[in-house]
């Protein structure tokens, strides 16, 4: 299990945690920071995660260029084996959380590529083939 932190403006981070709990039952294994919902400075929580997380660890932020991502980057960019991923969605966090392989930069890039936002277009269903299925 990889150590994961999600940091967002507002409740997106804890909202994703709630979705992950429903989908996988593993919501508790993720740390979250909901920034700016009150006056508390959240930077100490970022530092605490960096200090305690097993490596490799991943920090997901909501928005490239947002202040949350900037603070995370300032705190973690020089840390060895902490990856920062931004423009986060539910799919990418779940694929990292459930993935069993060793987390390298290359592998993380694959997981990100498989988890992109996409337009839903239904393809007319061709007859599925039982022989194909057992191949």
């Amino acid at each position, binding site marked *: 299990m990889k150590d994961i932190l999600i940091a967002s403006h507002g409740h997106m981070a804890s909202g994703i945690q709630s979705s992950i709990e429903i*989908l996988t*039952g*593993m919501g508790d294994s993720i740390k979250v920071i909901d920034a700016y919902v009150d006056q508390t400075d959240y930077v100490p929580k970022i530092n605490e995660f960096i200090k305690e997380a097993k490596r490799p660890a991943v920090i997901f932020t909501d928005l490239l260029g947002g202040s949350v991502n900037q603070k995370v980057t300032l705190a973690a960019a020089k840390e060895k084996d902490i990856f920062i991923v931004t423009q986060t969605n539910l799919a990418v966090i779940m694929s990292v959380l459930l993935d069993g392989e060793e987390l390298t930069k290359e592998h993380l890039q694959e997981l990100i590529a498989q988890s992109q936002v996409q337009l839903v277009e239904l393809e007319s269903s061709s007859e599925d083939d039982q022989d194909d299925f057992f191949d």
Partner: protein
Amino acid sequence: MIAQLRVDDRLIHGQVALVWTKELDTPGIVVANDNAAENEMVQMTLKMATPTGKKLLIRSVDDAIKVFNNPKAGNMRIFALTNCVADALKIAKNVKDIDGINVANVGRFTKDADNATQISSTLMLSDDELAALKELVELDVPVFHQVVPSNAKTSIASMLKNI
């Protein structure tokens, strides 16, 4: 062989597509459902929910039983899904090679909640479904309740004791 037969009223969805197919390591998914086998719109959404690299067959319950009993199925780990206990019972009676039956999510969105028996937070059973479940636990195959892999497996027989 069927690595798991799951009863889930949502058939393929997030818990199933992403979590269970990984956990069970099943290259093939078979949806055994009469409505889905006839409804092209349902088929398209089920295909959309199928993870990359997994193969999907959508069959009526009777046709799915033929697929499971195909000699080729003996060499393939299959994740089978029905949306009700009655369909799972029919499969369990007609297919030998089943590792376990997971009665996971049933009837929670039923319109007739007054006449349903709740045996867990995700299982609301009509009288017919409850009767089917009681019959299912008498068969020679493990029957359990486990919504996501991180939940403990609970035996359905033990859950029915107080019903």
